[in-house]
């Protein structure tokens, strides 16, 4: 039993099931991120934890207490909303203490709690202002203050950063992470932004079509995606997925792809899992992250299996620190991430280095990773 248990939870509207058999156990102090495209069910799940939506079947427990049917205010949770949901008619101070007031906390205690939170978030000078007079970042802090002051068991965040501009979003992200490290609170955080998910979480649940596709640490999700959806959703630019054929050449497994001119290229696979054997001679999907394809000088020195690949460069996109180089492999665009000073030029041939340690294979039918 964890701190927050989501046991076989299903959500249905009439006969339409939008969330299927979700099963997640969150330990105390964990930072769980629910990530997925819009409509995947992540916000529905969060609202069910909050008690804002009913549970069709299954159980949600916090500290071993079943929460089904319990009013949101009795779950000892706090929520930070996408729009911040600050009460426009109240001052910042009143906003922060409204929940305590509703729960009958004496005024003196409320003021003390408010002062502590204001100090923690450095918003002491804003307490008498109305939300309308605040900037986006300040509203965000107040919304967090309102959640923190209740000292809840679980914090729920519903896309809290998506209304901020790009730079502020990065700053606030760091701030939330610092806060979590400092206070050690349990957090469930919903976002559609996979970078937020990677940077903030201790564990990620990738959701799609009402199913949890994969639950794991950021590293597991990134390096060992359970299926094609997780592989392509997490990471930017997305993982390259190439049609290829698994062949046994001279006793070693090779993934065979085609270059821009239609010539076969065989990439040797080392330490192949046993399951690969069954796919010998069959079509598989080869997944390679852009950063695993570099120029030979930029290749990872710790990698054991670097394979050479020569191909025509179609487009280069310098992005400051890196340069993204696009080529055609197996009839599709394939992106490589290189050092800024790699000498790749459009239309010219270039020697790529592929780190096959990081390559993964997917079954083309089930789209699951082959392990």
């Amino acid at each position: 039993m964890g701190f927050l248990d989501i046991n076989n939870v299903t959500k249905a509207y009439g006969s339409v099931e939008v969330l299927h058999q979700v099963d997640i156990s969150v330990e105390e102090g964990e930072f769980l991120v629910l990530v997925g495209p819009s409509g995947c069910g992540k916000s529905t799940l969060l609202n069910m934890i909050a008690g804002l939506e009913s549970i069709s079947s299954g159980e949600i427990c916090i500290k071993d207490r079943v929460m089904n049917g319990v009013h949101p205010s009795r779950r000892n949770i706090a929520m930070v909303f996408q729009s911040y949901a600050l009460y426009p008619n109240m001052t910042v101070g009143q906003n922060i203490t409204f929940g305590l007031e509703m729960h009958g906390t004496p005024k003196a205690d409320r003021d003390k709690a408010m002062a502590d939170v204001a100090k923690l978030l450095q918003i002491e000078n804003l307490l008498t202002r109305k939300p309308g007079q605040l900037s986006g970042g300040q509203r965000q802090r107040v919304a967090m203050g309102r959640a923190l002051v209740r000292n809840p068991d679980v914090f729920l965040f519903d896309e809290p950063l998506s209304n901020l501009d790009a730079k502020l979003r990065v700053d606030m992200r760091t701030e939330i992470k610092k806060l979590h490290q400092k206070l050690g609170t349990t957090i469930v955080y919903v976002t559609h932004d996979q970078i937020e998910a990677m940077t903030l979480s201790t564990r990620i649940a990738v959701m799609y079509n009402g199913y949890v596709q994969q639950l794991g640490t950021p590293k597991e999700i990134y390096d060992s995606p359970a299926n094609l959806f997780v592989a392509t959703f997490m990471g930017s630019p997305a993982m390259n997925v190439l049609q290829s054929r698994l062949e046994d050449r001279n006793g070693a497994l090779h993934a065979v792809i085609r270059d821009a001119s239609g010539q076969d290229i065989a990439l040797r696979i080392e330490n192949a899992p046993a399951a690969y054997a069954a796919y010998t001679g069959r079509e598989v999907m080869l997944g390679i992250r852009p950063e695993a394809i570099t120029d030979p000088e930029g290749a990872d020195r710790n990698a054991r299996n670097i394979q050479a690949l020569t191909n025509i460069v179609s487009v280069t996109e310098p992005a400051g620190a890196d340069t993204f180089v696009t080529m055609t492999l197996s009839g599709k665009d394939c992106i490589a991430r290189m050092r800024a000073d790699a000498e790749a030029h459009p239309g010219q041939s270039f020697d790529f280095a592929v780190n096959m340690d990081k390559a993964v294979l997917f079954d083309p039918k089930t789209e699951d990773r082959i392990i």
Partner: protein
Amino acid sequence: MATTTDTGVDFRTRLQTWLPKLVLSPSLAIMLVFVYGFIAFTVYLSFTDSRMLPSYEWVGWQNYDRLFRIREWNIALTNLAVFATLYIAICTVIGLMLAILLDQKIRGEGMLRPIFLYPMALSFIVTGTAWKWMLDPAIGLENTMHLWGWESFAFGWIKDREMAIYTIVIAAVWQSSGFVMAMFLAGLRGIDNEILKAAQMDGASNFQLYRRIILPQLRPAFLSAFVILSHLAIKSYDLVIALTGGGPGNATALPATFMYSYTFTRNQMGIGAASAVIMLMTIAAIMVPYLYAELREKK
């Protein structure tokens, strides 16, 4: 320990889910009784031989049969057709014209707009009183023209059985056209200026701009204006009472005045109820599809 808090919590949650329905239910009950119950009752009466007091003797379609043979009712229907057509058409034309003119970056728009719109705030009784006198040949407009030396000027519509209905149109247009103007102006202000600029780049003249780009986008405003004006026209009662009293004779009778006089003055409640049902049907034929479409869109 856990169980006690759980039951307490349950009660509170259940109360919170019932409260909204509880709060809404008195209104719903009032509506069902005072609107839909009353409608049902009136419909029922229209099939009875009620006279001064409601009677419950069923007579079938007899009241409707008689209603359409009463000369005054047929006059009222003809009057309504004439009045509603002219009222809606003239209000729309004037309202649209004023809105378009006001939309030309007019200095003093802030002054003009309230002037065009203020009659809407007045009671029809006040409007009727004012126009009754303006249109009275002995002391109003005709008299003034005569005093100014235009001896041949004659404007005696209000005393003329043939023309009196048009005086109702004049007063009603005076009262409502500013409102139509406001609706069209809101529509015009909602049109994206960039579309107009693009059309001008494409070489559209001002006239083409209005005909091809702007007016088609005002469709919702046209529809709303039509619906509102037509239901006002069917309900028109006060203005006729104040302006002409339904006269001369019953030359300006409308269904609303007919219903009132048959029900409460002539003690023909069954016929009065039948006429009210016809009025409701006419309005429902316009409002129900409109409201249905509006509510569906919001989903």
